[in-house]
């Protein structure tokens, strides 16, 4: 709305940064592929070194796309929740939505073992996991919604989210307790978060799920702006807030659910990125904020993923640990330094 030229400039800087980090992300890891070769790859066809070709096409490219999708989905979930709950500390991880998704996946994989399916990540199938995780997320959102819908107090909402998240985690732990050793290990790895377990098949499924999750947001972008004034004002502007509530629940459920299903819980992206976007773009207009949040989220997760692949080493740090190590201080800084009421 204000100063479109400045916003365009910021978007261009963001896209540039995103491309640079993407190239860096594709190039680093146990085997380093020089950026100059990466840039030539689309024009000159496959690398002469077959190892590079396999690493790039079968591993790093799908992984980086997963990272981008995760960044977009989680940040947009976070922005929706913060606007809807009018709470600057809301986010899919903090409010236990990720735990709900985890419980969904856990129940599915238990049922799968009992019925002889192979459903856990890395074994093909995509849709059942996404469905289960989304249902888990939506259930937690509904519970929070039922209990805390009219709560204007930030603390109550956060505590309720923490409680529902704890209940979901407890359920997940009970499931893990009764699991076979191999499954337990798989669950442990899943819970640390990983972007690298997705092949092209899963990336396609994930991309479709993210797209489906974004559609309601795009259709309801105007009501989100009205919601900035609070539920009562939004209603007086002709917005059906009950519809908007469902838009938020379904969109956030699908976005967070599908990402959590494939990558495990990824903390702090959903809560921190919207604040960074508001600070950078100095606006609260969702027509600017939604794309801005998607762009910065993409950069954020790509950046964290690049950090997690220690250059020159075969080891990869769990992505959830990296996003927490970076995201938590950002949130702490936000709470201490910034007056939320002025930045929101």
């Amino acid at each position, binding site marked *: 709305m204000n100063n479109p030229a400045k916003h365009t400039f910021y978007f261009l800087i963001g896209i540039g940064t995103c491309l640079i980090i993407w190239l860096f992300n594709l190039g680093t890891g146990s085997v380093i592929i020089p950026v100059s070769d990466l840039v030539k790859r689309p024009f000159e066809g496959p690398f002469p070194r077959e190892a590079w070709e396999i690493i790039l096409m079968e591993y790093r490219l799908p992984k980086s796309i997963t990272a981008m999708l995760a960044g977009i989905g989680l940040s947009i979930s976070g922005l929706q929740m913060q606007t809807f709950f009018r709470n600057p500390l809301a986010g899919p991880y903090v409010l236990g939505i990720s735990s709900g998704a985890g419980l969904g996946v856990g129940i599915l994989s238990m049922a799968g073992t009992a019925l002889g399916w192979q459903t856990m990540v890395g074994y093909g199938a995509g849709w059942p996991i996404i469905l289960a995780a989304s249902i888990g997320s939506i259930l937690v959102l509904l519970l929070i919604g039922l209990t805390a819908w009219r709560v204007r107090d930030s603390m109550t909402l956060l505590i309720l989210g923490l409680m529902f998240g704890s209940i979901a985690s407890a359920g997940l732990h009970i499931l893990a307790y009764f699991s076979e050793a191999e499954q337990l290990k798989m669950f442990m790895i899943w819970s640390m978060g990983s972007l690298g377990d997705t092949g092209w098949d899963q990336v396609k499924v994930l991309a479709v799920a993210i797209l489906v999750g974004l559609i309601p947001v795009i259709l309801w972008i105007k009501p989100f702006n009205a919601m900035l004034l609070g539920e009562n004002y939004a209603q*007086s502007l*002709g917005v059906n807030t009950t519809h908007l509530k469902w838009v938020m629940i379904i969109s956030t459920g699908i976005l967070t659910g599908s990402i959590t299903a494939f990558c495990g819980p990824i903390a702090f992206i959903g809560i921190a990125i919207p604040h960074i976007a508001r600070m950078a773009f100095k606006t609260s207009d969702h027509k600017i904020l939604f794309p801005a949040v998607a762009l910065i989220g993409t950069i954020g997760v790509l950046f964290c993923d690049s950090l997690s692949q220690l250059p020159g080493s075969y080891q990869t740090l769990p992505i959830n640990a990296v996003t927490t190590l970076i995201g938590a201080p950002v949130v702490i800084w936000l709470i201490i330094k910034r007056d939320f009421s002025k930045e929101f």
Partner: protein
Amino acid sequence: MRQRPILSAQHLTLGYGSHLVTENLSFELFEGEITCLMGPNGVGKSTLIKALIGSNPPIKGDIILNGKNLNHFSRGSLSRQLSVVLTDRIISGNMRVKDLVALGRLPFTGWWGHLRTNDRMVIENVLQATHIEYIKESKISELSDGQLQKVMIARALAQDGKIMILDEPTAHLDLINRFEIMYLLRKLAKESNKAILVVTHDLEIALETADQLWIMSCETPLTCGSPEELMISGEINQLIPGKKWGINSNTGKIELNLPFQYPEVIGPDILKIWIQSAIKKLHPLSLPPHLIIKAAQKPFSIEVQIGSINQAFSSLSEFTAYLKNNFKKNS
């Protein structure tokens, strides 16, 4: 004769679910007039407002807006008829004034919320009408309470409905801003022929600016009339539950109903009022029945006659000290 009301109701019953809050409300709201809804806390003012903006429909009875039942309006079409200024806090400090005002055009824009030439014109006009053009680039977090209230009024105006409802727009404001806001509303009602309903506790300002008062009290459901009519008939006293307090029908001020009639002061009006006010503050006093107080200005003097004894004072504080020392009743 006045034109027909834009908003009216007969014998409304309001409440939440099965919980009854108030019943038998009848009222009419007219265009070009400012109406103040007054009444003690908890009497159902908010419930009435919620009914009027369609968020809590009446249990019994119909509200008629522009000849049509309010229940038959969709949210969208109601938002083009009626706008509100609520007491809800605005937490989006990042938003600029002009963007907040532009949100008022939301009911008129398409899916993307794009502002057309007409929308921009309306926004410019309301910024001018509310005298906030000079802050249109400011962030919400930088505004004073009085400025923010004007911005919220501008936003409601941009919605361009016939009716505007404001819930305590002058609470938390300083003295001058209270008057400014109410006179601004009065000007808007007259100039753009809007029906403006203001919930307020500010009796003094309401008496001065309102065309109509709606008084809600616990005993009688809703009394409507011009402030002057209600003042003359004494119905204005319904604002005040109990017998302890009353509204002085000469000054329009709320006063303690004292059981004892204090003596009249003879002299110019200004001295009469303020000397009597000073005497009342000394309550309880036991003054002799034949006490006469005379006052004069330039030079200031107060003379007290009790039978044949005369006492003269050259300042008000000397006079009050004398009363206190000689006639103060130990309660």
